[in-house]
C-alpha cells in the first residue's frame, strides 16, 4: 500500500499539480466539523440527555474504613443535589468583573446609546 500511495502522489505532482488543494480534503472537513462541535455544546443533549446518566450514578459510593465505618460525603452525592434549595435565582458568572472597561464595552450595543445595525434607525 505504501507503494501505491507514493505512486499516486507522484502522479499528482506530475500531472495534477494545480489540484493539490484537494489533498486531505476529507480530513480538513472532519477537523472543521469537530472544531464546530466542540465550540457549540449541544444544549439539547445537556437538557434532555443527561437524565439516564444521572440515574446510573445513583448507587451512592460509600468507602468503608476498617470494615466498621462508612465515609459519608453528602456534599458530593446526588442526594445533596436532590435536596438542595428550591430557588429560581441564577447566580452571576464569577469571571465577569464589571469594573473593567472591557466588560462594560461588551454590552454597549444593548442600549439605544450604542451602535445601531444598518437599516435600523434610532427614530
Amino acid at each position: 500500500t505504501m507503494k501505491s500511495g507514493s505512486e499516486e502522489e507522484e502522479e499528482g505532482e506530475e500531472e495534477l499539480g494545480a489540484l493539490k488543494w484537494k489533498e486531505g480534503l476529507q480530513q480538513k472537513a472532519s477537523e472543521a466539523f469537530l472544531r464546530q462541535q466542540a465550540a457549540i455544546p449541544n444544549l439539547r443533549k445537556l437538557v434532555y440527555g443527561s437524565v439516564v446518566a444521572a440515574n446510573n450514578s445513583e448507587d451512592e459510593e460509600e468507602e468503608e474504613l476498617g470494615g466498621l465505618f462508612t465515609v459519608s460525603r453528602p456534599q458530593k452525592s446526588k442526594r445533596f443535589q436532590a435536596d438542595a434549595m428550591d430557588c429560581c435565582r441564577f447566580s452571576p458568572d464569577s469571571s465577569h468583573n464589571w469594573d473593567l472597561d472591557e466588560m462594560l464595552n461588551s454590552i454597549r450595543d444593548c442600549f439605544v446609546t450604542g451602535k445601531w445595525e444598518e437599516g435600523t434607525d434610532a427614530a
Partner: protein
Amino acid sequence: MASHGLDYDGCNFFRQRLVLSTLSGKRVRIKNIRSKDDNPGLRDFEASFIRLLDKVTNGSRIEINQTGTVLFYQPGLLFGGSVEHDCNTQRSIGYYLEALLMLAPFMKTSLKATLKGVTNDHIDPTVDVLKSTALPLMKQFGIDGEGFDLKVVKRGMAPGGGGEVVFTCPTRRTMRPVQLTDPGKIKRIRGVAYSVRVSPQMANRIVDTARSVLNKFIPDIYIYTDHMKGANSGKSPGFGLTLVAETLNGSFLSAEMSSTPQGQGDPMLPEDLGMNCAKLLLEEVYRGGCVDSSNQSLALLLMTLGQQDVSKVLLGPLSPYTIEFLRHIRDFFQIMFKIEVQKPSEDERKGGDKVLMTCVGVGYSNINKTLK
C-alpha cells in the same frame, strides 16, 4: 387526563413539580425528602406552600407520611376565587407567588390572593421585581385586562415579615403563541429603592451609587425611593433596590438586592448595595434575551400551554433551575423544546450567547373556566 403518576426524589424543585402536576392533572409522589438530614422531612415553608395550593384548588388529595419524607399529591380542579394566606416567613412571598403566577390564568374563577409575610428578602425574587417583570411577560401571552395587578400594600422585610400583597389575575381559556425573538435595545432603566424602619436617607444613598454605574450607558434612569412608615413598614428593618431595564420591544431585564436580614451575618452599606445591584443588572444585560433569567421557566410554561402553534422565545443562558424545569415539562406534558444557541457576531457588542427556544404548544384549554 392521564391517571398514572410520576415519582421524584428529594425536596428540590418542589414547586415546579406540584405546579405541573396541578396543571396536567397527573399525580405525583415525592420520596426521600431530606431523608438523610438531621432534621428530615418537609419544612414549614413547604407545608405552607401545600396549604396555599390546597386553598386555590378543589378536591386535591394530599398525603404526607409521619416523618414528612414522602409526599403524595393528587391534584384537584383549579378553583381560584378569593384567597387569603399567611406565607411562612422562612421564604418570602415571591416563593409562593411564583407558583401562583403559573396557576392563576387557568383557574375556574379569577383569583384574588392576599398574601401576608416577607415581601423582600435576599433569596427569592421579591414582589417588586415580579410586578415589574413577570406581569408584563404574561401580558405578551394574552393575560391582561383591568383585573391583572400585583399591589404591595405593606412591606415586610426578612426575618420578621409583616408585609402584605394583593395579586389579582383574570382567567384565560387559551394562551396566545408568541414570537419573542428580538428584545430590541434598552431604552430606559427604572428602579425602586425601598427602606423600612431605617432612615429614609438610606434609599437616597443606594440611588446615588447605582446611578453612577448605570449612567455610563444611558441617561434615562429613574429610581423611585419608597419609604413605608408605621403600620405599612412590617416587623423588621431593612432596605434594598430593584432595577429594571426596559427595551424598545417591551422586554424587561431585572436585578435586585436586599440588605442582610437583621441578626444574620454582616450588615451591608447602602452604597455597596447600590453599586453591586447595578453590576448585577449589567450581568443580566450581558445574558440578555427577551426574558429575565428568573422568569425563564414562566415563559417556557406559557409556551408549552399555548395553542397548537409555534412559539419562539429568545433567552439568555439557561439557568440550572430552568434546565430542570424543561425536564419536568417533558415528564408532565411530553413536550421537548428545540434549543438553538445563537452566537453574537464579531463586531456586535451585545453580551454573551443567547438561546432560541422553540416549541409547539400542547393546545391546553382551561376547561375549569366558567362561561358567562
